[in-house]
């Protein structure tokens, strides 16, 4: 089953990428499309970050203080360095040390 899901999502990706120069059809994007799409990365990634730090099951919150600390340091590191590698390394080291 994973192969089917993988191939289908790969196909969707390919169709998106070639969509505007496929030569089959001229598609016109609505002007607001750009505005909505520009919020996709920050929205999706924030959802994943938040859910990996804190979750609420209807009765109580569950979280790890170590992970919260590491995430906090990583945010600071990302602000200062803007580097993926540096943020990743500093965040992991914080998690191991705390």
């Amino acid at each position, binding site marked *: 089953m994973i192969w089917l899901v993988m191939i289908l999502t790969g196909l969707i990706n390919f169709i998106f990428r070639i969509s505007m*120069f496929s030569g089959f059809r001229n598609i016109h994007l609505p002007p607001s499309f750009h505005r909505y799409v520009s919020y996709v990365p920050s929205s999706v990634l924030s959802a994943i970050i938040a859910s990996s730090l804190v979750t609420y099951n209807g009765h109580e919150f569950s979280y790890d203080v170590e992970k919260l600390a590491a995430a906090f340091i990583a945010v600071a590191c990302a602000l200062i360095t803007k580097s993926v590698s540096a943020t990743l390394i500093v965040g992991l080291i914080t998690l191991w040390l705390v």
Partner: protein
Amino acid sequence: MLPFLLGVVPFGLVFGVLGISSGLTETETILMSSIVFAGASQVVFAQLWAAGSAYFVIGSSVALINLRHVLYSASVAEYLKKLSFKWRIILGYLLTDETFAVSIKRLSAHGESKPVHFFMLGSGLTLWLAWQISTIVGVIAGSIIPENWELAFAIPLTFIAVVVPMLKNAPTIICALTSGLIAVFGQSLPWKTWIIVAALGGILIGALIEKWTSSK
């Protein structure tokens, strides 16, 4: 060329490690990097797969994350429309954030005086190769590194590194906060749909706030 690989290689490593720890086989993880070939969405795919999410949730999350490629496709379309079908298929497959960024930069510097498709092919193939190699190295590392190193936490860390520099204006910050809050409180939604609900909630809020503030 080099700086753009610096962002890709750690991501590929993280994906390789995560693929294995999510329960995908080595073959599945490695081939996903050529079949799906889109960084953040592969990571999300593996994570949702490991969590036992419904297939439509996985598919629509990946599609949503990659919707931006339609915009890239539109921006380069006028330079590629005249190419043969074979060329367009290859360049379509290779179109990524990084390849798009360097190609647009070059187009704005040189215009069409130098054909951009060779440049796209070269940068696209370099990136593709770096992505495949770093995935394979990640897969090898993933099967060696002990679990108590908590490398799965590399995902949120990598995403923090990507998102934090984006938070430069009020609509984007509110979008991120909204989506984050929905993700935290929506965990008990059926079929793990929290990811879609959170993503759409954040996108809607961000876009609407941008519209309201800019029309004043």
